[in-house]
């Protein structure tokens, strides 16, 4: 059937989702804007490198991280907004701006540090009024920014706003927005962190971001956006491409061949492919000259970077070592784990040896990213550096294993854990685990209770009840529900190990 008609008639797509699908189709017809490299095209066809369907004519950076503090302090000329004077004006101004923040999905991937932006206004009204206003604010986000990659941050300090957002998150049980707590045991009080743990068990959010680690790499002005992407505020990510390491490893004749030929070759292709795209976005797309976000200083071009992603480290290692049983490979055997470290070291060296014309905020280098996988990855390439689902070892072993790799991924890396009911009675215990993991270099911790409706698929959140709507051939407002369905069916992403009271 003709592809346009197919989209138009698709019963599982909302109107807005159809418009986006048609736009992607139009872009696919442009074969001239970006330079075409035959080796790159071939590697893409072989499934070794992947541009995450970023399109042939990028007309905005992939991830945009506006500095909403400017909106709070000065207002916005384009939107004819003055600096807000109270909580109602502040939340309304934010909602108006969110509507105009583009991204790869056309929804804003970053909504700001809610508590920092809103606390001065929240403190001026009664708790009841603040809660009423924030309830509407969150409901508005859930119903209009219908995409799970829409992400807001809290912390590291405790605040009235933060407490109210946690309370409302539990009461409302919504999939959007995704939420991170910037957690620093030296700044974040235990009782606030424990509330966040209990909220996370019930609603799969917030996740815990290792604040000390991110500050060391990015400075105080960093954001956690989309799934768990570390980026600079007033900046963002130009592009995210990825190596599918498991598929790549099959090209190697030996471990040494992998390091001498295969890995450097494809890494080079990807680096140059990313650079071509970034140059197009900066030099040809006109986005930075024309969009009010850039013109009014909500973002600055020099604060954007490139994100070099990868998936399938586990399977690549097992393939190279000819290990067939995953229970004896990556995560279970030190030779495999050390080979994983060697791959990360080699990648880290090559990626940091490449100089981009742009990306000034990261010294003209791209940042490594442990990509969470896409629905079409199936079981062949596990997300980032994760141990495959279904083969998770005991919790402490999994955490210790992860800390070998998290340090490399400055633009994001994390894992998801599923807990049984007993942890509701011992949020202290879960906080001990998170704190201990971070002290060892764990970057980003997500968890949820096995019975929750809102669940974290690989990095983003969906409602199981919404996936069931798609199963029944009905529409789901959330654009990401369809990815959740794909990841459930193809990647068994909802079947991860459940950790019980005495997690063995």
């Amino acid at each position, binding site marked *: 059937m003709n592809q346009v008609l197919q989209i138009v008639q698709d019963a599982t797509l909302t109107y807005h989702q159809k418009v986006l699908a048609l736009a992607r189709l139009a872009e696919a017809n442009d074969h001239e804007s970006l330079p075409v490299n035959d080796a790159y095209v071939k590697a893409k066809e072989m499934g070794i490198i992947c541009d995450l369907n970023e399109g042939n004519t990028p007309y905005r950076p992939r991830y945009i991280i506006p500095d909403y503090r400017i909106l709070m302090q000065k207002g916005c000329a384009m939107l004819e907004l003055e600096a807000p004077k109270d909580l109602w004006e502040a939340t309304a101004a934010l909602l108006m701006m969110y509507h105009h923040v583009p991204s790869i999905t056309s929804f804003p991937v970053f909504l700001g540090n809610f508590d920092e932006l809103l606390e001065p206004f929240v403190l001026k009204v009664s708790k009841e009024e603040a809660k009423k206003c924030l309830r509407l604010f969150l409901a508005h986000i859930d119903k209009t920014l219908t995409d799970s990659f829409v992400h807001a941050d809290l912390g590291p300090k405790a605040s009235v706003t933060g407490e109210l957002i946690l309370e409302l998150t539990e009461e409302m049980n919504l999939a959007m927005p995704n939420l991170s707590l910037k957690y620093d045991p030296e700044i974040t009080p235990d009782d606030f962190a424990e509330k966040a743990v209990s909220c996370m068990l019930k609603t799969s959010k917030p996740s815990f971001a290792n604040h000390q680690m991110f500050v060391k790499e990015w400075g105080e002005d960093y954001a956690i956006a989309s799934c768990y992407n570390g980026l600079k505020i007033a900046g963002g990510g130009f592009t995210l491409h990825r190596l599918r390491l498991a598929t790549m490893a099959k090209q190697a004749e030996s471990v040494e061949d992998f390091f001498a030929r295969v890995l450097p070759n494809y890494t080079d292709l990807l680096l140059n492919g990313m650079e071509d795209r970034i140059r197009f976005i900066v030099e040809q797309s006109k986005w930075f000259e024309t969009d009010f976000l850039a013109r009014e200083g909500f973002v600055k071009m020099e604060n954007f970077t490139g994100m070099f992603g990868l998936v399938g480290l586990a399977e690549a290692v097992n393939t190279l070592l000819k290990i067939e049983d995953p229970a004896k490979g990556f995560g279970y055997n030190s030779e495999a784990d050390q080979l994983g470290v060697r791959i990360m070291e080699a990648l880290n060296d090559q990626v940091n040896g490449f100089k981009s014309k742009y990306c000034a905020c990261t010294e003209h280098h791209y940042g490594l990213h442990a990509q969470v996988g896409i629905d079409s990855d199936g079981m062949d390439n596990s997300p980032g550096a994760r141990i495959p689902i279904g083969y998770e070892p005991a919790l*402490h072993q999994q955490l210790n294993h992860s800390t070998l790799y998290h340090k490399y991924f400055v633009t994001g890396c994390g894992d998801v854990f599923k807990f049984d009911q*007993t942890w509701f009675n*011992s949020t*202290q215990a*879960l906080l001990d*685990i998170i704190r201990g993991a971070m002290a060892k270099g764990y970057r980003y911790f997500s968890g949820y209770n096995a019975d929750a409706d809102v669940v974290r698929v690989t990095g983003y959140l969906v409602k199981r009840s919404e996936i069931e709507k798609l199963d029944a051939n009905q529409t789901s407002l959330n654009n990401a529900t369809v990815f959740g369905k794909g990841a459930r069916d193809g990647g068994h992403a909802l079947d991860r190990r459940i950790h019980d009271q*005495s997690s*063995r």
Partner: protein
Amino acid sequence: MLWTVASMTKAPVNRLIPFSNVDGPGNRFALFLQGCPFSCLFCHNPETIHLCVHCGACVKTCPVGALSRVDEKVIWNREKCVNCDTCIKVCPHLSSPKIRMMSPQEVLSEFEPVASYVRGISVSGGECMLYPQFLSELFALIKAKGKTCLIDSNGFTAFENYPELMSLADGVMLDVKAVDDDFHKKICGVENKTVLHNFSWLLKNQKLEEVRTILYPNYEEENLRTVDFISKRVKNVRYKLLRYRPFGVRSQGIELLGNQTYSLEDAQKLVDLAKSNGASQVVCI
């Protein structure tokens, strides 16, 4: 008596759990030692009560050949074992062949990889106070890592006789299963004099981390007496009321206490009583 064979430096380990969220505050490393001087009818882990007498009855029942006899001793192969617990079910001596003799150093080497995730160690059983020397040596090692040490005990041994151990231990989680001595003898097989003495001594010396009482179906009078007695004294110490559950209980226990869980409504009455008596941290599970 079997449990007096405790070695000075090694202890029989029934089980070791790297992360536990139910053995004291926060996340803890839990160690279960084998052997107990009580034989409570409602015990959920009756296989921890006695040391193995190497009778051999379990050997042939293992489906994967993880048990064998060597020189009159039953040997357990940890690598082969699939933890089906058949051996435990058939053992006529309330024991288990899956016991490791471990030194404090060996326990420490299992503790170290998880040290940063836990507040400390909780040692339970069986009854861990059968091995006070082992505990002292182990706690010295754990304290040197800056972590806390808790004892989980039925209170059969007088803590005041072990000043060195008590100076290392951060606290004791004490079971007070009944204040009525006759009833205590009936359900636990031994008298409770030392238990009650320990309760006051630990309280006075600020080493009482938590007190636990089981609520028994059909014994309201006894439940009331115990909860009343403890709650009038514990103040800010956590007091846990554990509703009897038939899960894992052996047949003699089921005969006496039945096959039902102690009801939440009845438990709530006792929680209210405890609170009105001044106990500030009452938890009911």
